[in-house]
């Protein structure tokens, strides 16, 4: 599948924003974060800014962005529509939460924070299900895809929260959460790749053409001499050439290095911790951009079976 920059940025930025909102909504009422109202407001504003930037970026992928409002109508069947509805609804408690944090309104922080956290989790789950529900892409139609989106969003959000909390001098608990989630994400992604690589494709040229009863099917002539929409959009091949190296870089940059840096930040503390926290958060986001690029670049669509040179 073609890795569209607008969608990669959308899922990484919004994912991190929703993850940040989730952990802020859960940990703030529990008193596990710096008490400063400026900290709470800054974190909430960053979360909402990332979410909004991501959603705006997703509109760039549309052929007719001015009609985007129509996407809120078909939530009965469409995960994309559900994602849109969940995103819009989550803005309500998230905005109340942000204002409550800025004004230190204790009675609103707990309910609004928890509602925002629930909304964030639902929205990211819907994003994951958009991909997980697509049967023609075997790398996406996999039980670990939607949980993966949740785990990576919560990890990147926790990383941002840990970075901010370290700046405000209270980063112990969120840094611990971020490091633990980083290790969990590392193991999860490895397990996902192992599972996907071991799963044979359910569809073949033989089932796609129904000619398997004659024997092995080989493409002889393409229907057209030039490219077309299908080939450009769904038969993207660049990612597989360097897949092994890119996977290692994504694991290292995205999960291993941030986990290590957050552990070091907990041990060292002070000014060094601030630098390490910043580096860890940047590394996590950069690694996730690469991870998301691979999600598209490595994905194979069954329409490729009809054309020469795939598999």
């Amino acid at each position, binding site marked *: 599948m073609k890795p569209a920059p607008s969608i990669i940025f959308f899922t990484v930025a919004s994912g991190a924003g929703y993850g940040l909102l989730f952990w802020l909504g859960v940990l703030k009422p529990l008193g596990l974060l710096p008490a400063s109202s400026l900290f709470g407001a800054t974190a909430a504003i960053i979360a909402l800014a990332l979410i909004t930037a991501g959603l705006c970026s997703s509109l760039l992928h549309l052929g007719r962005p001015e009609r985007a409002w129509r996407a809120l109508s078909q939530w009965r069947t469409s995960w994309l529509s559900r994602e849109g509805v969940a995103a819009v609804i989550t803005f309500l408690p998230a905005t109340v939460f942000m204002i409550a944090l800025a004004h230190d309104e204790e009675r609103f922080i707990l309910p609004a924070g928890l509602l925002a956290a629930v909304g964030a989790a639902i929205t990211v789950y819907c994003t994951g299900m958009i991909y997980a529900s697509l049967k023609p892409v075997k790398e996406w139609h996999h039980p670990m895809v939607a949980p993966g989106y949740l785990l990576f969003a919560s990890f990147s959000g926790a990383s941002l929260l840990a970075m901010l909390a370290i700046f405000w001098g209270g980063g112990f608990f969120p840094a611990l959460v971020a490091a633990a989630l980083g290790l969990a994400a590392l193991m999860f992604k490895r397990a996902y790749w192992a599972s996907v690589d071991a799963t044979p494709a359910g569809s073949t040229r033989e089932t796609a053409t129904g000619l398997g009863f004659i024997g092995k099917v080989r*493409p002889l002539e393409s229907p057209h001499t030039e490219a077309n929409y299908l080939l450009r959009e769904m038969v993207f091949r660049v990612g597989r050439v360097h897949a092994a190296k890119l996977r290692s870089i994504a694991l290292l940059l995205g999960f291993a290095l941030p986990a290590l840096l957050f552990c070091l930040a907990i041990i060292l503390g002070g000014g060094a911790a601030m630098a390490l926290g910043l580096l860890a958060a940047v590394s996590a986001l950069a690694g996730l951009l690469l991870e998301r690029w691979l999600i598209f670049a490595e994905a194979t669509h069954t329409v490729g079976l009809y054309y020469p040179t795939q598999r």
Partner: protein
Amino acid sequence: MTSLPTPAPGAKKLGLVIDLDTCVGCHACATNCKEWNTSGHMAPLPDQHPYSAAQEGVWFNRVHAYEAGDGDEGRTVHFPRSCLHCETPACVTVCPTGASYKRAEDGIVLVNTDMCIGCQLCAWACPYGARELDEDQGVMKKCTLCVDRIYNETIPEDRRVPACVSTCPANARHFGDLGDPNSDVSKLVAERGGYELMPEMGYQPVNRYLPPRKASSQVKTPPKEAGPLPSQITNPLLRWMDKVLSR
């Protein structure tokens, strides 16, 4: 609505039956499809760079060619690929706007291009590559089963079939109601063992493909040498003898 209609018992399931035994790969179906549909229900079917290198465009029908099997059993098969008007089309249910829909009355899958936002999720959801984006308008386009021909009372009744069917010189394309077991197309499918593509996907395509027939054993004996045509025999006596002996 992108919820699929619950088909009434005995509801029509219009679709195509494509005979891979007789298809000669001439691309006439694809060409006539483009010709009709570029001014039809889902018009236009734009082309990018039509008069220069890297020309491409939106087509509802693409004719592939494959080699299947090896040795004496091996053969070349021409393979037209278009929308299969599935009974459970995920291209419809994933649509966030309701622009994609399946008609309750005949099962045709269509796009309302006035509502489509061009998110392209339907193209990702289709295992068969039946949907192509109109990059000029930013909306998705697909085969309409020539909904603007098959019910069109301004054209003669015997021509109310999809453009691809009407133009096929090898009679390899058939159109009809696959929901009615007594229709001509259903009988053809039953007789020839017509099959669906990628049944493992569970989309339940309506269109059927008729398999290439087994090569008959007669083919292995060389054909008899053909004699001269009567018109090529100039001697009247010999022409008369040829006529008598040929009886």
